């Protein structure tokens, strides 16, 4: 009998547990009766357009820093653009092994440079000749004038003409075997620094994927006539400057712009072009709007100026990126390089440089981050930069705060002060 009672207790406890467990499960959604029977649903938003919200707007040059380009543009666009690239092979294999014995290389065959192309940057209508020059010098070879002076016939160490259809994603340009051997057996330093140039009867360009972009260029040659001996593969390397390891690595390959029509943006705000430009915009939005209300939409309105730059009819993808530089970074140029990754807070834009008119950049993601971070830590700024920064010629220009008031940047905000709920 007592056992039966215990069982009854168990049933009762189980019933209570089941009651709790069932009740805690979520159920299906529904909207029956709303809005008339849904309590407290009012959300009132307000709109405002700010004209004076920019404390700094300027065009920044110098990005990407030399050697950090992910693509290297090699172009010959008549009077509008002449761009070249340099690759360093500062460490060359000078021995080979045959039958377990090391030997100094005494002959070279099938020498060549292998690169990957970003075919989206290829522009050619006629066969293209890719010329390789020995640009090694004891002078500072990153100086444009110094480097350009080395692209001369007596330094030509390889070339090949390609049909347009042969410009695929992998390219091998042959080198003069004797000149490579001369480098291997000549005086120190035994290295090759190769300058890339294109020539064509028409306008032409290729875009090489750099080491930073994952391209892994190589220089190969056969060190022996013996077919049992494998080809030597040299990766691109840089051994100078010795006092700056970061720069030394960056300079493994880099871009040189010999001639361009993409000049200074002047009082305009420039994005893209060669040399590349970025636009830096620092915001001074009333704190009550960012910090004391909820901004649900923020649209930066920029007036685009029609441009006549190279490939002005092409579409340029622009990344508006949030600046992550702290308030202590007073150098605007440096601040413009400390950024969140693209497309994190703000979507990209696709603009045609030759077009004009008002362009809308939705930057509510940036405002959300600024609100979360607060006023005392990070700059409230964004940078506009090209997705192919440093590797494409088209540039987009916008009116700055120096322009006529009707053309200046504006910020359209939709915000909600406070949701009236809580007290019924």
């Amino acid at each position, binding site marked *: 009998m007592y056992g039966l*009672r215990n069982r009854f*207790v168990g049933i009762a406890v189980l019933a209570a547990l089941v009651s*709790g467990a069932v009740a805690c499960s979520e*159920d299906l959604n529904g909207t029956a009766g709303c809005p008339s*029977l849904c309590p407290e649903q009012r959300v009132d938003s307000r709109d405002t357009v700010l004209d004076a919200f920019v404390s700094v707007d300027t065009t920044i040059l110098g990005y990407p820093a030399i050697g950090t380009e992910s693509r290297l543009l090699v172009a010959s666009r008549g009077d509008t653009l002449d761009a070249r690239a340099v690759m360093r092979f500062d460490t060359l294999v000078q021995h080979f092994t045959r039958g377990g014995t090391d030997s100094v290389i005494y002959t070279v065959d099938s020498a060549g440079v292998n690169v990957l192309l970003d075919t989206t940057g290829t522009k050619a209508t006629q066969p293209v000749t890719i010329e390789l020059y020995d640009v090694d010098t004891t002078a500072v070879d990153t100086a444009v004038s110094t480097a350009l002076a080395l692209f001369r016939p007596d330094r030509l160490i390889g070339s090949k003409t390609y049909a347009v259809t042969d410009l695929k994603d992998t390219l091998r340009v042959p080198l003069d075997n004797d000149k490579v051997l001369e480098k291997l057996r000549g005086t120190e330093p035994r290295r090759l620094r190769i300058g890339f140039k294109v020539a064509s009867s028409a306008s032409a360009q290729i875009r090489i994927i750099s080491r930073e972009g994952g391209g892994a260029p190589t220089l190969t040659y056969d060190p022996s006539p013996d077919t049992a001996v494998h080809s030597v593969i040299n990766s691109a390397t840089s051994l100078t400057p010795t006092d700056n390891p970061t720069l030394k690595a960056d300079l493994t390959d880099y871009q040189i712009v010999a001639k361009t029509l993409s000049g200074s943006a002047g009082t305009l705000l420039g994005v893209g072009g060669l040399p590349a430009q970025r636009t830096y915009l620092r915001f001074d939005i009333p704190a009550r709007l960012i910090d004391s209300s909820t901004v*649900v939409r923020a649209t930066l309105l920029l007036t685009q100026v029609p441009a006549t730059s190279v490939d002005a009819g092409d579409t340029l993808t622009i990344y508006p990126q949030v600046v992550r530089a702290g308030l202590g970074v007073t150098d605007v140029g440096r601040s413009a390089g400390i950024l969140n990754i693209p497309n994190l807070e703000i979507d990209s834009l696709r603009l045609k440089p030759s077009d004009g008119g008002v362009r809308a950049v939705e930057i509510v993601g940036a405002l959300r981050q600024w609100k979360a971070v607060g006023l005392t830590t990070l700059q409230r700024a964004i940078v506009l930069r090209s997705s192919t920064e440093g590797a494409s010629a088209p540039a987009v220009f916008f009116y700055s705060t120096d322009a006529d008031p009707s053309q200046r940047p504006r910020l359209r905000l939709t915000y909600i002060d406070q*949701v009236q*709920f809580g*007290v*019924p």
Partner: protein
Amino acid sequence: MRRSLVALSIGCAMSVISSRSNAQGTLGAQGFGYPPGQLSVFSRSLGGATGETDPLSPINPAALALMRRGGMYLQSEQERRELESGGQTGSMNIYRFPLFLAAVPIGSRGVLGVSYSTMLDRTWGTEIRGSTSFEGETVSFTQSFQSEGALNDVRFAGSWALRDNLILGAAVHLFPGENRLTMSRQFDDSLTFAPLGDTSTVNYWGSGYSVGLLWRPIRTLTVGASGRIGAKLDLKEADTLKATAKAPSRFGAGIRWDVPGLTAAFRVDRTLWSDMKGLGSAGANPEDAWDLGVGVDAVGPQIFGQHVTIRAGARRRTLPFLADSQQVHETAFTLGTGAPFARGRAQVDFFVERASRTAGDVDATERSLSFGVGFTIRP
């Protein structure tokens, strides 16, 4: 002292009240919330008819004397609420612990007790799809509002049997409470439009007192009557006093007829919810409400050697807060049972209730199915 009491009662509220809800409109939980009735499972089983004579229901302080051995009581409820309106149906589940009570005997004629009960349960959730226009561009969004929490009644009561057939009781009431509300709006185009989120916490603090009596003119008949007078009731939002009104007063009477194997009861109750007028906006002004209940409790069959009781009740009442400017009427039918165990030192009671709510010509009907269990432990 007051601050510690507030902290205590809020702590109780947070640990005792728990709910899960989802989206729909509501008829019963408008304004400051839905009044569960402050009834024990036993009284709920009888349609609230025994509310005035039930020691476990914190209605009539005099009834506390019927717990002569003292004891503790805990009640758990879940409600599934469905609203049908305009051809659409929405549902929500609510889980609550609406009542806790403890009592100790004082001598052979007195009992002291403290209880904690939910007076207005403001638990609901809505989710709607909508659209808004920005500079001629229309964007859709999903908007959710949720409310949790309650206005509660903490009662410190004492009762004394003047004679074998006459008991008087009195109580002091505190009305602490907290509502936690959250809202969010998520736009379909989440890249262009930022989500909107907000929270609000509303706190209540009030007081009142009540008196009551139980009189048994003949052995089979018990009459109970009680009244509660509300004092000041404050509403604070973010620690700022926003409004002050009166806690709702109430008056009620009930009659209970007991013969061996059968109990029948009837109760009428009038709550002056309009005392709360001014605590919220004009749209949340409450109306006074009637509550009528009738029920029977009969000895049923033996299960596991124990007699279980079979209970049934019906209840008709009005709810305090208008829905779409119409007063809400609730009709409920209940069934229940209960049995002692642990050699009579404990009792478990169950009820199941089917209720429907309507509001004038509002095109909506709310139906609820509630299930409750109550545990009583006696020393």
